[in-house]
Structure formats: C-alpha cells, structure tokens
C-alpha cells in the first residue's frame, strides 16, 4: 500500500517538472499559435547554460539559474524577433520546419560544444534530503521544490496575463492580431517578449531538469513530447490545465514504472492517447478558441 502511495506522490512531483517543461510551450502556443519543435532542445540548451555558469563562477545551480535567466530571456527575444517572427502566418509548415531545423542545430551544436557526455547540476546535500510525512512515507525535498516552483511559475504567469497591461496586450494579440495593431501594439515586439518570458520559464525547468537527473544534448525531443502531452491533456489556453496535464503524465509514468520499469514512458503515452480519444479538446479547454 505504501508503495502505491509513494508512487502517487512521486508521480505528482514528477508532474511538477513536466508542467514546468510544458508551461513555456503552452504560453507560446496560446499567444502566437506557434508550436516550437525545438522547445525540448532549448530546455537542454538552458541546462547547459546554467552548467557553464556554475562551473565558470563556482555558484550553486539556483544562483546560476538566477543569473542565466536574463541571458535566456534575451536569447528568446532575439530568436523570436530575428527568426521565428518570419515564420508566422497562415501556413503551418514554415514554423514547423524552421523549428525542426532549429532543433537539429541546437542538438548538434551542443554535441559539438559539450560532447555526448552526461552532465549533472550539483546542488549539494539538498539533492538527497527528504521530508518525512509519517506512516513510512517521505517526499524528497528536491521534487517538492520542483512542484512548488511549477505552481509558483504558473501563478506568476497568470498574474502577468490577467493583471498587467502587458498581459492584456498578450491576450488581445492572441485573440486578434490585426485589431491589436490598431491599439498601438507592435505584434513583433509582443511576440518577442512572449518568447523571452517563455525562455525564462524554460530556465527554471532546465534548473530542475539538470538537478534531478543526468542530461546530455540528445534528450531534448523526449522533453518536447512530455511537454506537448501535458499541454494537450490540460487543454489549450489553460495554464492550470497544463499543470494538471503534467501531473497526469507524471502519475501515469510513475505508476507504469511500478508495474514494470520498462513500461514507464509507454504508460505516459498511453495515458495521453486515452485522454486524446475521450476528450480531444483536453480536460480544461478555454471556452474561446
């Protein structure tokens, strides 16, 4: 029994990590209908940036991520402004192919720069600490922090979206880019800002990715798939839905792993497919699409 409760807890915590992966993707799709096939690789890139900062400056990963975040914001802004803005429009092939090409470039660029060796962000003793919940159950401090960070990130994003002038501009541009221009909103800058914000969330995701397990340049595509599954399950346009989606994937994977370790990833995909068949629009779709 405890084993199953433990799996449940682990699954929820893992869900927090997947929600972090997915939040950036959800944001970008919500605002500019862009699906970035390089999203997973950008998370890995961010992890390497944090790694470089930790080794160069001898900082612990949390501080390093804090320093890396503005760098990644700027990178996202530039990427969108210079490259991805050119792909937006009615046709879905250009953004798909360009981000696909970007994914290959990032992966292989990282391989050239860092080799295929596994890396890890070392956070010290906090990695192995756990909180006891009584009844033989315990949660790791790190997974708990991950979940808490995911919740905080979503709270922050929702605040940005619903209580700030910039957030209003994001939502208006997402609704109707042409009329948004009539309000004096420069779509190109808005999209670039949105990508910058997304990359900041990616930085947080990368931090926890790197501390949780080993990473190397090739693990990007799998993260993209988990992120995507979380967004679809949650329903397009809802960040809390994305959190729910992440948790469902996390739970499916952890429970699947309990049944048979080889089934972990497959269980996540199966859960995704089941939700897709039963509820094609996701669990909490936005009313307006």
């Amino acid at each position: 029994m405890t084993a199953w409760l433990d799996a449940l807890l682990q699954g929820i915590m893992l869900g927090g990590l997947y929600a972090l992966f997915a939040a950036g993707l959800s944001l970008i799709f919500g605002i500019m209908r862009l699906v970035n096939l390089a999203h997973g690789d950008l998370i890995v890139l961010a992890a390497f940036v944090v790694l470089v900062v930790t080794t160069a400056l001898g900082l612990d990963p949390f501080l390093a991520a804090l320093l890396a975040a503005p760098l990644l914001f700027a990178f996202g802004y530039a990427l969108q402004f210079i490259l991805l803005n050119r792909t937006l429009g009615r046709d879905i092939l250009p953004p798909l192919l360009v981000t696909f090409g970007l994914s290959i470039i990032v992966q292989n660029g990282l391989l050239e720069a860092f080799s295929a060796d596994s890396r890890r962000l070392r956070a010290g003793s906090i990695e192995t600490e756990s909180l006891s919940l009584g009844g033989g159950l315990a949660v790791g401090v790190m997974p708990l922090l991950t979940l808490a960070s995911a919740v905080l990130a979503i709270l922050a994003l929702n605040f940005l979206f619903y209580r700030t002038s910039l957030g209003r501009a994001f939502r208006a541009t997402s609704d109707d880019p042409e009329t948004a221009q009539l309000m004096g909103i420069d779509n190109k800058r808005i999209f670039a800002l949105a990508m910058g914000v997304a990359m900041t969330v990616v930085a947080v995701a990368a931090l926890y990715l790197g501390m949780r397990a080993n990473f190397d340049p090739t693990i990007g595509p799998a993260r993209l798939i988990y992120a995507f599954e979380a967004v679809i399950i949650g329903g397009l346009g809802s960040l809390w839905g994305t959190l729910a989606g992440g948790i469902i994937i996390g739970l499916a994977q952890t429970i699947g792993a309990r049944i048979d370790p080889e089934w972990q990833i497959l269980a996540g995909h199966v859960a995704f497919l089941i939700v897709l068949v039963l509820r094609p629009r996701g669990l909490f779709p936005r009313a307006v699409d």
Partner: protein
Amino acid sequence: MEASYRVSIGGRYTRHLALAGALVVALLVALPAFAARSLIEDLIFVFYMLALAQYWNLLAGYAGLISVGQQAFVGLGGYLLFALAIMAGLDPLVAIVLAGVIAGLLALPTAFVVFRLRGAYFAIGTWVVAEVYRLVLAQWKQLGGGTGTSLPPEITNTVSGIEGVKALFDVRTSAARDMILYWAALALAAGTVAAVYLILRSRHGLALAAIRDSEPAAASAGVDNFRTKLSVYVATAAGTGMVGALIYLQKARISPDSAFAVLDWTAYVILIVVIGGIGTIEGPIIGVLVFYLLQSYLASFGTWYLILLGALAIVIMLFAPKGIWGYVSERFGLVLFPIRRRLVRPGDAP
C-alpha cells in the same frame, strides 16, 4: 447543336515526356547488367528515399496533413517483414507487399487517434504515435526486443529470383540479391510516382487540391473531407510500410531505434521534399538527387553536416519555400507531370 467544352489535363509535350520517362525507366531496369555494385546500392537508397518523399509529399503537400511520424510506418513495415519472413516463413518479396497491407490496416486506428488533432499538434501527435509503436515493438522479445535482431542467411539467401539472376548474370548470391532488391526498389519508386500521378489526375486529386486550399469550401462543394484525408493517410501508410519492409530487407538487421528513427525517416525525407519543391511530383525527384549528393560528399562531417542540414531547412523555408522545382517551374513554366486542369473551348488549340 452547340459544340461542347471539355476539361483537358495534358500539356503540349505530354507524349514526348511520357516517352522520355519510359526510356529513363528502361535504362534504369537494364542498369544492373553493367553497373558497379556500389552504384546499385546507392541507387537503392535513392529509390527508397524517393518513394518515402513522394508519400510524405502526397500527405503534406496535397492533403495538408503534415506528419512528423511517418517513421511509425517505416518501422512497422520493417518489423512486419522480419516477422512474416522469420516467423511465418513467407518469401521476403511477398512479405514486402503484405507488410504494406498490414501497415495500411494499422493506419486506421492510428488515424482514429491522431485525426483528433489539427495543424502542428497533429504533427507532434503523429510523432507520439510513432514513439508508442517503437516502445511496444521494443517489447517483442522474439524479434530482439530493445536491441533488435538480424535476418538469418536462410532467408536473405533465398529471396525469390536469386538463382535465376545468378545464372543469367553469372554473379554471386549477395550480388544477385542486391540486383533483386534494386529492381524491387525501382518498382516501388516508379510505382509510387505513377500512383501519385494517377491519384492527382483523378477526381480524388481535385478533391485534395480543394481541401488543401480551403476545407470549408471543399466541403460545401460536396467533398467528404474526412474520407478523403483518411484514404490518403491509409494509402500513404501502406506505401510507406512497403518501403520500410524493403529497407530492412536490404539492411538485414533491425532495431527499434533504427527502425523508428526520426532523423532518417522523417527529417531527411522532409528536407528532400522541401529542397525539391513541396506540392509537386517533380520536387521530390530533384530533392532526392540533391540530398544524395549532399549525403555522399558531406556526411562524413558528422554533427557539422547535420547542423548544415538544419540551417538549410531554415534558409529554404524562409527564402525559397517552393523549393528548387517550385522556382524553376514558375520561372520557366515547366511541368513534367501535368495535373492542372484547363477548360478547352471548341476551337481552342488542344
């Protein structure tokens, strides 16, 4: 009595082009008699990549279904070939065809799932499905599980026709097998091009063009969007499955990671179509030749080669989205496979 209008498809030089095409195919059929083994092997690669590209182009360029999960059917075709040849004892060439049929059947439940998604999400959905197939087949212990397996010599040495070819050309078994596979690959490639051309010339092709331009408009004109798209998806899956079976018959060794590789069976294929010109039949032909050259000369550069390919995809998509053939065809008005319909009035030049 009024003379009637008619719809004409052929261009001015259709007869000449058809003749030229037949000559090219005849030449290719005769090639193994005098070509070096390495050329034959290279051409097998060119033929199966061309077939894969034509199928992806039909799906994406005509039906508007952009899939990054076609590797699912390549892998399925490969594994079905191994299963049918090793476990059911079928002749491999027969197994290729059967693998295609089964892959097409499996496309039905696949479509049931992925058609719930649209646009870019449909694309990633197809990728997820490919991953599911990969993970499931990796559990199949009889075919090597996660590490894969090889085709035993009893099978590779007894592909039908090997004895006949050995006698005719006085070559060893392995060379004879290569020739048989070459002809099979040529048949698949030529057959695919012909099939795609015929589909596009038929009313289904017209329906596809309508769907691609505007689904609501097509529906209001009486096109059954769902049925049409489903048919194309299933047909493409069956074709891709056959190609996958052929590929792995040639490689004689299969593993889940290889059979379902996104890079080999999707990234390269998409690049070929885009370089050559999406939405045209001529495009993939040009694209595969360009890709073959790139691969031959630059693949040794490893990661830098891949970075170059990624950059190429981006540059083409931004600056030359219609690809080489798109540009040439617009500039010079060339068409090798005419499919545009013209209204011919009585008295007009044909």
